[in-house]
């Protein structure tokens, strides 16, 4: 069990049904040990992942968000992940501007056959989130 130390943190993963969700399955079937913090939400395609889902999760209690889809060119819907790539890249660059550490958000491409790669990704990302610690919630404003 890769050591990520102390208590679990809240990590949300949006995985596309055709590749990455399958990749996570493959990792499980291969009994690849993984940290348990991540909670997986299955979506048909990474192109379904509105950047606002990531923002919403981070604003409402998630300490980290991971999005994973089919490798570019390999999208089950042929173009979905191309859109995802542009939108998520934009988001990744934007988050720090509003004070959210960009390391709390990671997007990547993992195919259904890449169990190993899935294990490495979850492990590394979980470790990274633990290094960052829990995400401090917004201070309530004093203004009327």
């Amino acid at each position: 069990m890769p050591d990520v130390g102390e208590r679990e943190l809240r990590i949300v993963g949006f995985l596309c049904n055709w590749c990455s969700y399958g990749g996570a399955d493959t990792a499980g079937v291969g009994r690849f040990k993984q940290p348990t913090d991540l909670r997986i939400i299955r979506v048909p395609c990474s192109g379904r992942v509105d950047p606002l889902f990531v923002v919403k999760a981070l604003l409402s209690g998630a300490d980290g968000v991971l999005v994973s889809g089919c490798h570019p060119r390999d999208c089950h819907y042929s173009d979905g992940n191309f859109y995802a790539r542009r939108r998520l890249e934009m988001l990744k660059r934007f988050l720090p501007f509003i004070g959210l550490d960009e390391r709390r958000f990671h997007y990547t491409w993992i195919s259904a056959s890449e169990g190993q790669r899935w294990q490495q990704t979850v492990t590394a990302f979980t470790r990274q989130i633990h290094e960052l610690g829990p995400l401090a919630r917004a201070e309530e404003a004093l203004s009327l």
Partner: protein
Amino acid sequence: MRVGVFICHCGNNIAGTVDVARVAEETRKLPGVVYATDYMYTCSEPGQAEITQAIKREGLNRVVVAACSPRMHEVTFRRTVEKAGLNRYLFEMANIREHCSWIGEDKEANTRKAIEAVRMAVAKAMRDRPLYSSSFAVNKRVLVIGAGVAGMQAALDCAEGGLETVVVEKSPSVGGMMARLDKTFPTIDCSICILGPKMVDLVQHERIRLHAYAEVEEVKGYVGNYQVKIRKKATYVDWTKCTGCGECMEKCPGKNAYDHFNCGVSPTKAINIPFPQAIPKKAKIDPQFCRQFTKGKCGVCAKVCPTKAIDYEMKDEIVTEEVGAIVVATGYGLLDQERLPEYGAGRYPDVITGIQYERLLNASGPTAGHIVRPSDGIEPKTVVFVSCAGSRDKSIGVPYCSNFCCMYIAKQAILTKDHLPDSQSYVFYMDVRATGKGYDEFTRRAQEEYGARYIRGRVSRIYPKGKKMVVRGADTLLGTQVEIEADLVVLATAATAAPGASMLAEKLHISYDTNGFYVESHPKLRPVETNTAGVYLAGAAQGPKDIPASVGQGSAAAAKVLSLLSKDMLESDPAIANVNTAACVGCLKCLKTCPFQAIKEETLRSGKKVASVIETVCAGCGVCTATCPCGAIQLQHFTDNQILAEVNALCRM
């Protein structure tokens, strides 16, 4: 809301590292959940019966099964709840095996994760809505792209099965690569002799329409209803008049046209019939070599043609075919020799490729079957075969094995001995891959009966020395350097994706791997299907294959098509996008981003312009939903609210 939750032990697969009883107990605390239990094997027959009973007994209107991956059993359980009278989309699965019990030994942590996985699934289930698929008519015609042996087999089987079949072939004759081969392994029977009849059957079949010298221009539509635009390239010969007599080719003064069929072993005429057994046996002009086109005067063929079939003014023609399914059998290409400079192929006339050698061996080839050196027409004494010329070589981007080279080299070595009894063949190989039925015996015969010398090692360099070609390589078994002075060198150049394969893939919305070969939808269980419904694969387009495998796949694809088109109506997946016209502001960003052109503009009676989804075309990716600023277009079963419910179930704790 009355949710029932079934937590599966999956024997010890889950129960071993997840406290399923506690998961059930925690689940009972969730509002909306009226029933939660754990069960040994939920997917077993009694397990499914338990679900069906519970639905009736507890009056459940949502069901959640926490077990293996939905990719495994979602379909199974959907059927179960449907049998019990529940709409199959009122069902959710929580993956507590692959994503939970199997990722570690920490029972406490796994159990926590399982509890939350169920919590999320319940939250989503409570926002599930019943969905109903609509059915639509299918067009019982099939298009086969490529008329090599795989495509022909698929076409013939489909036609025999009673389907109107359209075949599109890029080159002027059907037959593909196999028509170029002299003999076939491991039986050494004549390639064209076994292929010829099939070619004849193809053109003569009442239900097959052939578009030769044509290419797919555009593909629109969806499973059951594709519209395919086909570009029939100009041949400058009216094929309805051409009898294939060959008079024009005889008299044509344009002597230096590139001979595609013979892979450039020798030139052909500017107007030509590709080969004697060509089907259709019709002439065509290669304008870049024809004086009429290059110099603007000649017209010999027009004069000599007995049927006045020549038409220099001919233009490309676009025809549209409507079909219900498509078989892609576009075959393979060969690695450009220029990418093997150290072998000097292309530079030295006596270093040729395997397929060129086939033509030299072939009785109807340019040398009428006499093996001679291209450079000086002398019979070679020493012939060196180099296998893996490019294959299994990451450095030039061909990491894979080309599958059939080992075998055809053995065959060519044997044939060489047949043609030139006092010749000696050498074969440089990395390892001999002869896994098919009777294959290994065949390669042994090449060595033992026909005395081909097999040298295990790579060739480092080939260079000329007088009239000879020096082949320098390593013999890794003896651990020595070897140099052989050859009269002729044959390179088993790597099989690559057919030229233009990726462009066709994009027209068809199917995916292709890093090497350009088309990707099947499951490497084991769906080998001829693609991820695009109604599009199937056959032959080397999916990866290098020998003849039997290609034929097998041709038939397999045909079987798939036949079973698909055996239905009069198809059911559409209801988990597709849906527009709330009240909220839609008609900005049509969805229309612009839809990968399937499944969205059209529609004007409501009120005059308001809105987006509207073409049910049968929508594939359910949800790009539109992620694009729509006002959440008016929602992918059913993965709506914003359903995904947000999952996020909230996790984060708002």
